[in-house]
């Protein structure tokens, strides 16, 4: 299959499979391997993405560069003061 079509099918599998439904994952095909980029909330969701991809393309090696966003969620360090309306500078 054409590389572009194969890449599209893998990205759609990750977006549409109920086990994943991850919409922001990109699949880059470099030679005979896949590089996965994007963000998921947990290690469990990363594993689910890898499972779905392995089912679709068991013969291809995967390099996982996914970022896990909610592994260690902490409160913010500070706050931001929003300027009052009369200090706004609208575009003209």
């Amino acid at each position: 299959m054409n590389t572009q079509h194969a890449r599209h099918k893998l990205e759609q599998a990750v977006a549409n499979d109920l086990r994943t439904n991850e919409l922001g994952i990109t699949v880059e095909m470099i030679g005979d391997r896949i590089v996965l980029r994007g963000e998921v909330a947990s290690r469990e969701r990363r594993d689910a993405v890898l499972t779905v991809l392995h089912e679709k393309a068991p013969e291809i090696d995967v390099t996982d560069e996914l970022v896990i966003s909610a592994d260690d969620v902490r409160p913010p360090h500070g706050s931001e003061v929003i300027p009052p309306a009369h200090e706004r500078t609208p575009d003209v």
Partner: protein
Amino acid sequence: MNVDTPMVRIAAVGDVHMADDLRGRYSSALAALPDQADVLLVAGDLTQHGLLEEAAAFVAEFAPCGVPVVTVLGNHDYHSGRESMIRELLERGGITVLEGENTVVNTPNGRIGVAGAKGFCLGFTGRCAANFGEVQMKAFTQHGIDSAATLRQAFDDLDADVRVALTHFAPITETLHGEPAEIWPFLGNHLLGEAIDAAEADLAIHGHAHSGTERGTTPGGVPVRNVAQPVIQSAYAVYELPIGARV
């Protein structure tokens, strides 16, 4: 701004995509919330697949946080066609859900008014769907147009000291930087920005763009903050707004 100007404090996060695997991830971080903010706004995608058990997990995690929780739903919350039941479940848990509606939170320093609507796709100047052609294209476009009208309606009778727009979809492109420009029409809608400017809101909060940028401004000068959790990289962000500054 005078250092003695009374301020209200608004915490916000979006796109928590709650499911069983995230139970317990937010609750400890939220313990500090009552010391930092008067209200928590959640900008949609409360759940991963729009399932009732995920909504129940969201309630269990966020409802006990010690401040009023005000939300809009996101596209993930609609995925299983159970958005009405999700709304009922959230409301039974004490969480406010807005869609073309507003609510006012009373704080010691003033009233925070929140006008909320999910919003929808459509696009922005130069990359925008048009109400033309096939019936499917017209339906897509019209839904984007209608979603902005829903946000306008939410502001109609909102009387408060500070007025905040809460959406899931983005109202401007500035907070989408980091996302591929090709998908911006699926991430937001310039008419939401027009609605926010028409309402002369004090702040606009949205989510949806996980790879976007936190800070931006509408063409009319309203501060916009993309609080998608992967963007703010914390349990919530806190914004302080002065009271009595409306002119």
